[in-house]
């Protein structure tokens, strides 16, 4: 049984890369606006559905369809923040959470109305292949996940630390009011951050579309895995979300193999519940609980 472990690690890390990307995109939104986007999973799946629409109904090749889908989700995130989140940003947390949930449901309803009755499969850009090394198998999909996510992580590191945009965003992560005082257009940059966050999530959704049959309800599946990554890593910690996502991916495989396959579905729920009960700040987060 133990000989399976390297294989489980490899495939767990590969799928964990996707959770990490989705967790990271949610963390960016959270850090910028302190809004947890409960509709994020549905936007992630919308990314995959957009690719489906652009390739099948508009008959574009895969790469242009992917780029258009990311652009569409960027625009959607931008408008979403501008039109629905910004007007109530000073309101109670409950309204913000409800707004995000309601938008997620509306997107899901739209998808179900169009694709609810059929099994939609996103077209593949390449044929599946298998690679063998040191008694482990890796699929081309898994290699793609790892390469794309690692490239995205390096790219976002450079964007956040080296560019003017990244420095402004970092300033806004620290304090929005302070950023506004030194002349940053907070509303514009919040719009942009929501756009970037949604596009990043959509990229994760497109990669999930390679291995999943598209289903309107997959949004919740994604959302809870993104939450689990964020919770385990510590809310608001960017690298925490990445590490959390990788751990969840591996944990799913390990529990699913050594305990029971039923655990694959509920690993992320259990992680959320156990982490919030035992150590609410997660691995790298700031204080998270109210002590009275």
């Amino acid at each position, binding site marked *: 049984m133990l000989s399976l472990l390297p294989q489980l690690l490899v495939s767990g890390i590969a799928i964990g890369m996707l959770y990490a990307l989705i967790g990271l995109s949610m963390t960016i939104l959270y850090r910028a606006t302190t809004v947890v986007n409960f509709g994020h999973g549905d936007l992630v799946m919308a990314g995959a559905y957009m690719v489906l629409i652009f390739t099948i109904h508009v008959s574009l090749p895969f790469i242009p369809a992917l780029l258009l889908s990311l652009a569409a989700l960027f625009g959607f995130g931008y408008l979403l923040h501008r039109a629905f989140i910004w007007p109530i940003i000073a309101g109670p947390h409950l309204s913000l959470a409800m707004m995000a949930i309601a938008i997620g449901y509306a997107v899901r*309803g*739209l998808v*179900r109305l169009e694709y609810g009755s059929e099994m939609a499969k996103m077209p593949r850009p390449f044929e599946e292949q298998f690679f063998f090394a040191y008694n482990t198998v890796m699929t081309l999909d898994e290699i793609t996940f790892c390469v794309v996510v690692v490239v995205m992580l390096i790219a976002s590191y450079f964007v956040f630390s080296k560019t003017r945009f990244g420095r402004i965003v970092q300033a806004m992560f620290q304090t929005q009011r302070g950023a506004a005082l030194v002349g940053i257009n907070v509303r514009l940059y919040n719009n942009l951050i929501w756009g970037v966050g949604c596009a990043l999530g959509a990229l994760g959704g497109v990669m999930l579309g390679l291995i999943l049959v598209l289903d309107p309800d997959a949004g*919740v599946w994604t959302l809870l895995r993104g*939450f689990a990554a964020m919770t385990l890593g510590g809310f608001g910690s960017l690298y925490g979300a990445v590490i959390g996502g990788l751990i969840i991916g591996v944990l799913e495989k390990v529990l699913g193999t050594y305990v029971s396959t039923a655990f694959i579905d509920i690993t992320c729920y259990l992680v959320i519940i156990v982490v*919030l*009960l035992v150590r609410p700040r997660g691995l790298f987060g700031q204080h998270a*609980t*109210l002590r009275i």
Partner: protein
Amino acid sequence: MKPTRSLFWLLPLAALALPLFINPYHQYVINLILVYVLVGVGFNIVVGNLGQLAFSNVAFFGIGAYASAIFTTQLGIPWWLTIIPAGLAGALAGCAASIPALRGVRLFYLAIMTLAFGELMRWTYIRTPFLTGGSMGLTVPPAELFGWVLETETQKFYVFLVIVVVIVVAVGRILESRIGRAFLAIKNDERAAAAMAIPTGRYFLLAFALSGFVVGVGGAMYAALVGHLSPEAFDLVQLILHFAIIMVGGLGSLVGSIFGAILITATPELFRDWPGFEELMFGIVIVLVILFLPRGLASLLARLHPVFKDRYLRDD
């Protein structure tokens, strides 16, 4: 109590005559509305009055429904005897859901955790087929009241009406009492409430248990009404229904929960041929309510006539 408030009793009295005028299908929808009045009232206690982001309401509803169904099918207890145990099962689930809140988990953390709890319960219904019938669902024998079998929708209606009136009046009294004021104090500022020597932890537990009880009783009624429980009935579409009821009705308003339930429950029955339409419509409705009517229908009604204003809200 101001004399005008007793006018509210006209509502259930008028409802008594309702079955004379309508067909069985409409009677079924009205019974469903009664179930969702309890769901809305229970949900609003935690979200509206205590001001916590707890999404575990569907779990309470499912636990109440399954508890009632399991007691009747496995133990052969008549339905009317399972109402209180179903409510207690819901209350127990409420206590369980309040544990993270007692540990200081608030806001989004609580929301995520309770969301995970709800999904975990749905997984449990599917994975315990010996109790719940698994994904095939569980067929519930016709409800029975003192040996009198509730066969028609009209019979169920009168029984449900009595239960709903008793519970709504009781919850109203609780919310107007010291307990309800403590909930509102915690909602407005938890630290300040604690500084005023309000034992916040105890009130958290109480609010969650009360919410779980009310929704659990609603679940028992739901089991008797539909006669067949399946795990899909307690998924996230159910959750948006619950949210729509309290958001449209008015957060933290008892009157709002009732009118929200009447308005929201009736609509999906019109669109059942188009899967997805419910979610789309409720999503849009909630967005519009948050943007343009943040206090919900209750605030409109209160502007119409002060009698609709909840007494525990009159000062703000």
